[in-house]
């Protein structure tokens, strides 16, 4: 029986940290392809939408390359899709950043500004740059799905609640349906959605490729996981 190396395709739409993501995936044993070719993206085995920068620029860049319908088509295939940072925000219906922009609308909700704040005499600056903990989402629906923890059978399966990951962002996502929260994180007085999960879609607001061993573990699980619908 031959060992099949999972192939992960990274969408190149001219923004951000492609090579960091690729390096981390290669390190955990995946075969990696970086491309903007529509057919290759549509037929990917597993897809990652990375990105750093503004929502409007992100959507424009995808549109220019004819990738909006392609990514929606890929989503319908049922194969796994992971959005990272801006990539996760673009999955939403719309984003507010220098105006209101339409997103990919794969998860209903919007991307909004994270505000600077003060709590207990501490200044929480924007962008939110640095390490922070990911926590189980506060809503309790998971007990109805038969999982012992909200992360069992997800790409966070092997992580303990509270592990630190690396953030660098000024915006957050607010899904209409809170059951799509996979993880939440506290920053000042705000508890925001730091990871999402809906059917075959995952999203991480933080950067797994910059999150040391914890991040590598997330990529390892993404490379291993099969979505069974």
């Amino acid at each position, binding site marked *: 029986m031959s060992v099949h190396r999972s192939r992960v395709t990274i969408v190149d739409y001219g923004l951000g940290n492609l090579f960091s993501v690729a390096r*981390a995936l290669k390190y955990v044993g995946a075969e990696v392809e970086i491309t903007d070719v529509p057919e290759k993206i549509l037929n990917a085995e597993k897809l990652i939408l990375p990105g*750093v920068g503004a929502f409007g620029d992100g959507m424009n860049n995808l549109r220019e390359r004819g990738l909006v319908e392609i990514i929606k088509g890929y989503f319908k295939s049922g194969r796994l899709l992971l959005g990272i940072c801006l990539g996760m925000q673009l999955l939403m219906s719309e984003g507010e950043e220098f105006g209101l922009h339409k997103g990919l609308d794969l998860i209903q909700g919007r991307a909004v500004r994270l505000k600077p704040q003060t709590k207990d005499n501490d200044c*929480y*600056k924007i962008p939110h740059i640095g*390490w922070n903990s990911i926590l189980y989402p506060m809503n309790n629906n998971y007990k109805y799905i038969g999982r012992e923890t909200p992360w069992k059978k997800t790409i966070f399966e092997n992580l303990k609640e509270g*592990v*630190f990951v690396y953030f660098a962002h000024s915006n957050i996502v607010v899904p209409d349906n809170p059951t799509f929260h996979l993880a939440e994180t506290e920053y000042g007085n705000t508890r925001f959605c730091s990871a999402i999960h809906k059917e075959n879609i995952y999203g991480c607001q933080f950067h797994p490729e910059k999150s040391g*061993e914890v991040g590598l*573990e997330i990529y390892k699980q993404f490379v291993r996981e099969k979505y069974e619908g």
Partner: protein
Amino acid sequence: MKTVRIIPRLDIKGPNLVKGIHLEGLRVLGKPEDFAYQYYLDDADELIFMDVVASLYGRNNILEIVKRTAERTFIPLTVGGGIRTIEDIRNVLRAGADKVAINTAAINNPQLISKGARTFGSQCIVVSIEAKHKGNDTYEAYTNNGREKTGLDVFEWTLRAYELGAGEILITSIDREGTGGGFDINLIRRISESVPIPVIACGGAGNRQHFCEVLKEGKADAISAASVFHYNWLKDIVEKEKFRAEGNIEYLKRYSETKRPFDVWRFDIFSVRQIKLYLREKGIICRTSGASMVYK
């Protein structure tokens, strides 16, 4: 309490990690990528690489070191020293860095900050400011590693950098850097309170208390330090030849003969893990090791 960041800073000259000593020259300590990997294993939150000659001679020779480092250290890397154009930023990011620190070029051409932020995102653009105390609570910004005056007031320049789109400010006290005498708390706090973006304090760390002070009273979001960390590995460097030093290793030879961290008396030395343990005891939150947090 917010989570703070501990960021070892590596000054790089050619192929070597070097350390400048206040009013002296540069000492060679070993290969930067080896130290970088060691710090990654030691729970460093990020790394900063400064190319210490690039500004003067206009050469960037650090990309190879960045590439080698990025291959196995999965934490953010900031690179500074001699970055002058959008192309320079692009090349550094492509080589594997996550952020760039710009000083001289930003002062000579402030639009580099806004263009850089627009092109790559604010979180990629760290404006590095070197401050020299001029008396009467005023500080002047310097460039080229503390060699050239600019006539700019540090606080006005900080505000302007933020308005132009800087994601973070890296503030170095020229007077304190390399002395081990502590941070300039007054300077750091004023900078931190003047802008809503994160501030990384640099220059002066000599003992554990300094770390605590600059976070609690200085209101810094992160600390960058060099001497306290690099000298911790001196024994490994010399006895186990662990960090492959080459070139002028005068300093390391002296250590070999005396078996003492020669001339390091003004610094406490500790690993990143050790300082984080100390900070946690003081009620400051910093991230704990990933490996112990994973099931399996």
